[in-house]
């Protein structure tokens, strides 16, 4: 009976409506958006049509070998380090809308702290929501069980503290 009720409740409150999240645009920081040395073309070209604030760690902002995959509503930028890959992504789409009356999801979907550091399958990630957009910063190591950058949070925390907005437009 419990199973029946849970199933009915979940099915009734899950809504497959997908869409675009509203962005609360930050005040432009001209120094970050227009740096004294222009950002590499791979970055500026890759994100020119992306309509969300683009954050990357400042230490990688001039990495010519970064790989940018982006469209209007999301971006993923990855950086190859010695023995590891760092990725930062932002996404302003949603695939599911859940009624706020769903008590099961009330518990699970409670607003998280500013940032959540998570251990993942052999990698480590930091998930956060800024301006209404969901961002992920992660690192994957060649030797996940030995490499301190994947074993501990410090490296990711440092990268998170160095995030700068390098583009994106309303």
């Amino acid at each position, binding site marked *: *009976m*419990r*199973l*029946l009720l*849970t*199933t*009915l409740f*979940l*099915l009734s409150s*899950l809504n*497959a409506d*997908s*869409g675009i*999240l509203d962005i609360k645009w930050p005040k432009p920081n001209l120094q970050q958006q227009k740096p004294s040395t222009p950002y590499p073309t791979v970055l500026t070209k890759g994100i020119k049509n992306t309509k969300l604030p683009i954050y990357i760690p400042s230490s990688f902002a001039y990495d010519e070998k970064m*790989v*940018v*995959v982006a*469209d209007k*509503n*999301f971006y*993923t930028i*990855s950086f190859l380090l010695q023995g*590891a*890959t760092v*990725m930062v*992504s932002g*996404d302003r*789409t*949603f*695939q*599911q*809308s*859940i009624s*706020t009356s769903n008590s099961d*999801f009330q518990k*699970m*979907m409670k*607003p*998280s702290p500013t940032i*959540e550091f*998570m*251990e*993942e*399958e*052999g*990698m480590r990630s930091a*998930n956060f*929501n800024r301006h*209404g957009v*969901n961002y*992920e910063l992660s690192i*994957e*190591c*060649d*030797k*996940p*069980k030995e490499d301190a950058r994947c074993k501990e949070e410090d490296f990711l925390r440092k990268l998170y503290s160095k995030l700068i907005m390098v583009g994106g437009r309303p």
Partner: protein
Amino acid sequence: MRYFLIALIAIGLTACATKDNKKVEQQTWKGKGFTYYPAGYLKPSNSGRGRRGDNYIYAPNIRFPLAYAPAYINSQVYGIGGQFGPRGSLCDQRNYKYPWRDNYCEKRTRGMPLCPAGVGHQGVDIRAKDCRDNTHYAVAVEEGVITYIGSYSVKLRGTSGRTYRYLHLNSHSIQVRRGQRVWRGQKIGRVSDNMGKTKTSIHLHFDIKQTIRFGNYSKSVYVPPYTSLVDAYKRLLRGRP
């Protein structure tokens, strides 16, 4: 007519619930001998708490992530030869048999808001037809773009906005590059035991990340993939992947 349909659904669901109370029944799918346990019923009981009762298909109409059937969803960790499983070989034939068993939310330390324990396995582990390494292809579950290739993971962002993660493919077998657009069913790489410079068992870890909006708030989470995969596998067996 409306009341008749409601009554019919209620009778059907009550029957299912009664069945469930007796014992967890395998679901049998006619035609190809495919059987599976319902979503969230993990085994053994100490392997964690699954998300029972949530039969929602979070990623409808995806293609099954392996090119060919048969494939087997069951635990790598608690299966035969696994870290906490009965002694034996990971290649034991009993690991390569139906029924399927969900392993989303299986005991792990990863933060997982949708798991009853708040932590758990972020996806499911899938064994290909047999234990051969670097033989069986993983394929794109929907049309999209490859956003990321790491030491042992490949991420595909589908046109639906969901991100699908393929882990442990042989890195030399990867047939896509970052930024490449792929079509549904396109080969991505071959199933292996790659975990960077260390090894795991030969399997595909597959997970689905999507954003859920809850009122004015939204969160990107790993959603249960099992029901979507059961659905996709039935289409594969019907020959209409």
